[in-house]
C-alpha cells in the first residue's frame, strides 16, 4: 500500500510538516467531504512585509498549520502546501492549484487526484475567510 505512493508523498505522510492549529489564526479554511473520507482544515496567520516593488506593504502568509482526516494523499498534500506557501503573498498563494501540489509531491495515484487533492482549496478557503473577516 505504501508502494502506491511516491517517495515524497510517503515522506510528507510519515513526517508531516506544520501539523496543528493556530489559536489566533487570521483565517481558517476547511474543505472535504465525509462521504469521500477526507477533511482538511487550514489555519493561516497573515502578516505584512514591504512589497517586492518597493512601494507600500503586501500581505504574506507568516504561518500556516493544518489538521487532516484522510488517507495518505490527503495528509501529504496538506503538509506539502504548508511548505509551499509559507512566506508567500496572499496573491501568490491564491494562484497555487491542487494540481501543482500533486506535482510537487511527484504525482498522486489517479484515484486520489479527485478525492484527496484538496489542500489548495482548503488554503484558498482560509484566505477567503481572512479577507471576509477584515
Amino acid at each position, binding site marked *: 500500500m505504501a508502494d502506491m505512493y511516491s517517495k515524497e508523498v510517503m515522506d510528507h505522510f510519515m513526517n508531516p510538516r506544520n501539523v496543528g492549529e493556530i489559536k489566533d489564526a487570521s483565517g481558517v479554511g476547511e474543505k472535504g467531504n465525509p*462521504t469521500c473520507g477526507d477533511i482538511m482544515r487550514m489555519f493561516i496567520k497573515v502578516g505584512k512585509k514591504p512589497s517586492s516593488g518597493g512601494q507600500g506593504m503586501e500581505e504574506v502568509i507568516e504561518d500556516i498549520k493544518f*489538521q487532516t*482526516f484522510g488517507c495518505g494523499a490527503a495528509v501529504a498534500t496538506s503538509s506539502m502546501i504548508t511548505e509551499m506557501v509559507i512566506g508567500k503573498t496572499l496573491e501568490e498563494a491564491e494562484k497555487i492549484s491542487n494540481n501543482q501540489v500533486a506535482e510537487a509531491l511527484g504525482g498522486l495515484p489517479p484515484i486520489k487526484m479527485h*478525492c484527496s487533492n484538496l489542500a489548495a482549496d482548503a488554503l484558498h478557503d482560509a484566505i477567503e475567510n481572512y479577507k471576509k473577516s477584515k
Partner: protein
Amino acid sequence: MDSIYLDNAATTPVSDSVLSAMQPYFSEKFGNPSSIYKIGQKAKSTLENSREEAAKLLGASPKEIIFTSGATESNNLALKGVAFHWSQNLGIKPHIIISSIEHHSILDTAEYLEKSFGFELTKLPVSEEGIVNPRELEKVIKENTVIVSIMYGNNEVGSIQPIQELSQIIKKANEKRENKIVFHTDAVQAYQYLDCDVQDLGVDMLSLTAHKFYGPKGVGLLYVKSGTKFLPQQQGGAQERRQRAGTENVPYIVGMVEAMKNAKKTGKEIADLRDYLIERVTKEIPDVILTGPQIGENRLPHIASFIFQKIEGESILINLDLLGIAASSGSACTSGSLASSHVLTAMGYDDLLAHGSIRFSLGKMNSRDDIDEMMKHLPQIVEKLRGMSPIK
C-alpha cells in the same frame, strides 16, 4: 522483522498439500477432458472424481456441481442465470432480493440487472450487528420474486446470516407458487469454518472460491440443486453439462477439492486468537468500536473489524504496511472507489465512522506473537493520526 499477514479474508496462501496435488496436472497429465483419447479421458476421470468429492463435501450430488473461475463468476451466474431464465423463458419481469451487505460480486451484479434490464431489486436491511432479520424477507417477497441471495458470512464484519431460517421462509412461500423462488448463498468466507452441507442449509445455489481456504486463485464452484432452472451465461462448448462453456481448469479444480478436503470446519483456535485480538484492541486503544456481532456464535471465527474513531482507515493501513503488517480497510480509498463501505453504512454507521474501519482477518499461520507484535505499534499509530485530525 518478518511480515505479519492479517488479511486472510482477502486471500490465503496455497498450502503444500494443495500445491503437490495440483502439480501433475500441468505438464504430465495435461489432457483436455473433452478429448476422446487416453490422456483426455484420464483428465476427464480426474475431473469427475473431483466433482464427486466436492459434491460429497457439500452433501450434494455430482451433477449439481459446476466448476467456475471463482466466486465472482459463480455469483454472476447464479443471479443472471436465474433472472434471465425468468425474463427470457417465462416472460416475467424478475424481482431479485439481496441483503444490503453482500459482496460486490452480488451487489454490483444485482444493480446491473436493475439498471440495464429494468429488473426489480430489493436490498434487505440489516441490524446494527450486520444480520438480516428473516421477518424482513417475509415482508418483501413478491409474486415475481425469482431469487433471494444472502451471503452466509460477511467478509467485512464477520456477521453470520441465519441461512436456515431464511430458507424456511422461502420454502413456505414456495409451497403455493408454480415458479419457485431460488435461494442462493455466497459461502465464500464461511466454507472452512461453518457447516456448508446444502441439505442442512436448505439452499438451491451456493458459491465457493478456493483461494479463501488455502486453495489456488481463479477457481471456484457453483452448487445448483437439480431442477433449478437458469440460463447459462457463457456459450462455446458442452463442458459442465452445457452449463458453463470453456475447457475445465483441471489442475486448479484438483487443487480446490484438495483444499476443500483439508478445511477443518472448526474455528476454535482461530476464534480464540480473534477474541484475544479483540480484547487487546478494545482495551488498549480508546474510542474503538468493534463492528459486527459481539464475540459469540454469530461471528465468523477469523474476522475482527474495528472503527477507530476520528481517523481514516487507509492512513492506519499505510503505517502498518511500513512495519510489514498487512490488514485491510472497509475504507474505499484503497479499493478504488470513493464511497465508504456499504456494509458499515447499512449497519447504521455514518460516513466518517465508516471511513475509520480496519479489518483484521486471521488464518492458520497466525499466532499470538503476531497480535502481540501488531499491538506494539497500533496504539501509537492511532494516537499519532488522532493528533493530526481536525475531528476532536
